[in-house]
C-alpha cells in the first residue's frame, strides 16, 4: 500500500520533471525519477506474488537506464560544446 502510493507519486513527479523543466539536465533527472517510479511498480507487483521475474527485469532496467543516461549526458555536453 505505502509502496504502491510512492510508486504512483514518483511516476507523476518524474513525468512532470521531464515535461516541465526547461533545463536539459533537470529533465534528465526527472526522467530518471520516472524510471525509479516504474521500477517500484514492478517491485510492488513482485512483492505480492514473490515472483522473481519482475525483479530480474528491474535489475536489467537499472543497468540499461544507467547506460542511456551516460549517452544522454554525453549528447548534452556535445550540444553545449557546439553552441560555444
Amino acid at each position: 500500500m505505502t509502496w504502491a502510493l510512492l510508486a504512483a507519486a514518483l511516476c507523476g513527479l518524474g513525468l512532470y520533471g521531464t515535461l516541465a523543466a526547461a533545463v536539459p539536465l533537470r529533465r534528465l533527472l526527472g526522467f530518471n525519477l520516472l524510471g525509479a517510479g516504474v521500477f517500484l511498480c514492478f517491485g510492488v507487483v513482485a512483492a505480492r506474488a514473490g515472483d522473481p521475474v519482475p525483479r530480474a527485469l528491474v535489475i536489467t532496467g537499472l543497468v540499461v537506464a544507467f547506460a542511456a543516461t551516460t549517452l544522454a549526458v554525453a549528447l548534452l555536453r556535445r550540444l553545449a560544446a557546439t553552441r560555444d
Partner: protein
Amino acid sequence: MILDALLALAILALAAWTVWTRDAFAAGIGFVATGLLLALAWVRLGSVDVALTEAAIGAGIGGVLLVNAATHLGTTAEEAPPSPRQNRLIALLCAGFAVAVGTALLTLPDPAPNLVHEAAAALPATGLGNPVTAVLMVWRGLDTLLEAIVVLLAVLGLWALAPEGATRPAPPPREEGPLPLLARVLPPIGVVIALHIVWAGADGPGGKFQGGAILAAMWVLAWMAGLVRAPEVMDRRLAWALVAGPLVFLGVGVAGLVLAGEFLALPAGWAKPVILLIEAPLTLSIAAGLALLLLGPPERAP
C-alpha cells in the same frame, strides 16, 4: 510499518525537491540521496538483489555521473520554460497519470498476475537437472547477454560522439593529499568486495552487474587520483576486455544449440563450471564498459 512510512515520505519529499530546485549540483546530490533511500525501500520490498543494484548502479556510479554532469552543464535553459498555463496543464496531466498508476497498482487482482508457474512449467523443456541453474541460464540468460550488449553499444555510442582526432578521455585535474592515498588504499578492498558480490550472486540473480559496477568505480577512483591513465580508444586489449564477455556467452549459447539442441541450453552436469566460465569474462566486460561510460567520450588531445 513506521519505517516504511518514514522512508516513503522522505523519498517523495526529496524527489519533489530534486525536481523543483534550480541549482543543478544540489539536484544531483538530491538524486543520489533519493537513490540511497530507494535502496532501503527495495530492502523493505523484500528484494535485496535489486537494492544492491540500486546502491551500486542507481545511486552509486549513476549518481556520480549526474553530479559530474551538473558541474559541466550548469543550469542554462535550452528553451523557454512552459508558460504558467501550460505548466498547470502539464501538472494536471501528470497528476492524472499518477492517479491512474496508483489505481492500477491498488486494484491488482489477488493474487497478482505472475510468472511463477510459467517459469516452473518451462523448466522440464530446458533439459536441465538443476532448476535454479535453468532459470539462471534460460530465463535470465538471454536477458543478461542482451544487458551486456547494451552496455557495449552505449560505449560505442559514446565514442561516436567524440570529436575528430580524439583518442582518450581528458585527464582529471591534478590532485594531491588525501585523494591519492584513498585511491591506493580503497581499490584492493573494493576488488575483494566486488568479487565477493559476484560470487554471492551465483545464488541469486545478477551478481556480476553490481560487482562490475564496484570494479568500475575503483578503477575510476584510481584514474581520478592520477594513478592510472585512461586507455586509448584504439587499444586492442581494451577492445578484447569489452567484447570477451558477450563473445564467450554467445559461444556457449551456440554450443548449446549444437550439443543440446537449444540456444544457451547446457548439458546436465556441466552447468556449474560453464556458468563460471561465462561469468568471469562477463564481469570483466561489464566493469570495463561501465568504467568507460563513467569517464565519458574521448576528447581531443591538447
